């Protein structure tokens, strides 16, 4: 700390504000003692310091913990006395007469009972639609379904029966035949696509499919080492299946492979079930279920009309 003409004022102010250390204070006092001309400056600055007054807060007791409750209770009492509240006649004047006649809301020609039925029907439709959507596993197109089915029906006589009964040697032969059957399936697929494109009647289509399948199935079991097969392939997804039941003369229970080829007979189980599936864009809707729903809805409306006539 250097005391001189330029710095003395700041240091004197720090002195009177008691912001200097004891050592610095001694230095200042020594400086003033050595330079009496600065003593007046120090006195003038000391005069700006306000001495403490004996001012006291008059309601100190009210501020204390017990005082708060007492103060608030007295304030509340005073308020209650000063403002007793509204008079009863004034309150009654504020009240309004209760309306005796309620507002009658007329139905918009649509009974709530019927609305409930309609809502249930709508929910049912949504549920069925969702069920149909989630039912189809991979592809929604019927062509894909039919392809898969034809492929399985063509390949299954060889694969399913031969794996379970034939020897490994025969199994190798089966693989070769699978390749052949795949080629056959390709030709079969072409036939099916032709069928779809032709928009022929359903009976014609089923007959044609039978002929095609019989024609395709005839060359396949032409193997001497293989067990003869039982073809019982039905696709659960296909609503209009053509079941070809090829019953071999030799039973599959016999372990020895017959050397002679037996003729295969095919039996058509069901061909009359019409395909009621409706396709909207990429969605497939079961026609039977839709028809049932339609019946339910029409019955609801019929009931409603009958009730209305009564």
């Amino acid at each position, binding site marked *: 700390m250097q005391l001189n003409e330029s710095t003395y004022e700041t240091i004197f102010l720090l002195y009177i504000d008691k912001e200097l250390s004891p050592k610095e204070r001694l230095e200042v006092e020594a400086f003033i003692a050595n330079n009496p001309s600065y003593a007046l400056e120090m006195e003038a600055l000391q*005069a700006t310091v306000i001495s*403490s007054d004996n001012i006291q807060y008059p309601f100190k007791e009210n501020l204390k913990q017990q005082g708060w409750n007492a103060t608030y209770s007295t304030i509340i009492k005073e308020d209650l006395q000063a403002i007793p509240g509204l008079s009863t006649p004034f309150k009654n004047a504020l009240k309004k007469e209760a309306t005796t006649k309620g507002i009658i809301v007329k139905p918009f020609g649509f009974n709530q009972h019927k609305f409930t039925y309609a809502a249930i029907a709508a929910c049912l439709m949504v549920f069925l639609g969702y069920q149909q959507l989630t039912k189809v596993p991979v592809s929604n197109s019927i062509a894909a379904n039919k392809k898969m089915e034809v492929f399985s029906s063509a390949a299954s006589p060889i694969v399913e029966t031969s794996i379970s009964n034939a020897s490994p040697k025969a199994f190798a032969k089966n693989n070769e035949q699978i390749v052949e059957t795949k080629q056959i399936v390709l030709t079969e697929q072409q036939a099916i696509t032709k069928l779809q494109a032709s928009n022929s009647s359903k009976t014609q289509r089923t007959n044609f499919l039978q002929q095609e399948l019989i024609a395709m199935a005839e060359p396949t079991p032409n193997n001497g080492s293989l067990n003869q097969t039982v073809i019982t392939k039905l696709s659960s997804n296909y609503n209009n299946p053509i079941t070809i039941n090829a019953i071999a003369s030799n039973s599959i229970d016999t372990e020895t492979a017959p050397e002679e080829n037996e003729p295969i007979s095919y039996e058509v189980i069901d061909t009359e079930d019409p395909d009621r599936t409706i396709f909207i864009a990429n969605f497939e809707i079961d026609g039977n279920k839709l028809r049932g729903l339609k019946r339910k809805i029409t019955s609801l409306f019929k009931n409603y009309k009958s009730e209305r006539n009564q």
Partner: protein
Amino acid sequence: MTDKDYNDCVDNFADGVYRFIVKNIRHTEDAQDIVQSAFEKLWVNREQVLPEKAKSYLFTVAYHQMIDHIRKSNKMPLSEETAIPHQQITQQDAELKQVLMHAVNELNPIQKSLVLLKDYEGYSYQEIGEIMHLSESQVKVYLHRARLILKTKLSAYAPTASKCN
């Protein structure tokens, strides 16, 4: 802070806070209201306030409430009771202290609060800065400036006072 600590704060600091406020706003009833509000706030927040920080907390709350009060009252014209005419004091009160208080009252609110907090409560620059939300250097500069203004005014009043005596 316990209830006992709070009551100790009332005993120890209520006078100081009241003095600080009443010297600033020169209105006893408003000062009492501000003190009451400050202690009410301390009571509400007593669980968060440490006993050693209670004094600083009280002065901080009271100071900011006082600033709000001054801002509100500046919008309204000062009543005749609170306004102290300059001529009246110089003629009636010749004592140096009264002249000093008059000079202090002419300082701006920040300078006035700085002087009062320093002289009445003995706060350090740092503590004053915390209360008034100022930096330590700002406190130092503003306070020194206020001291020099007071010094100039006292030197101007002193001859008048001596003449009156």
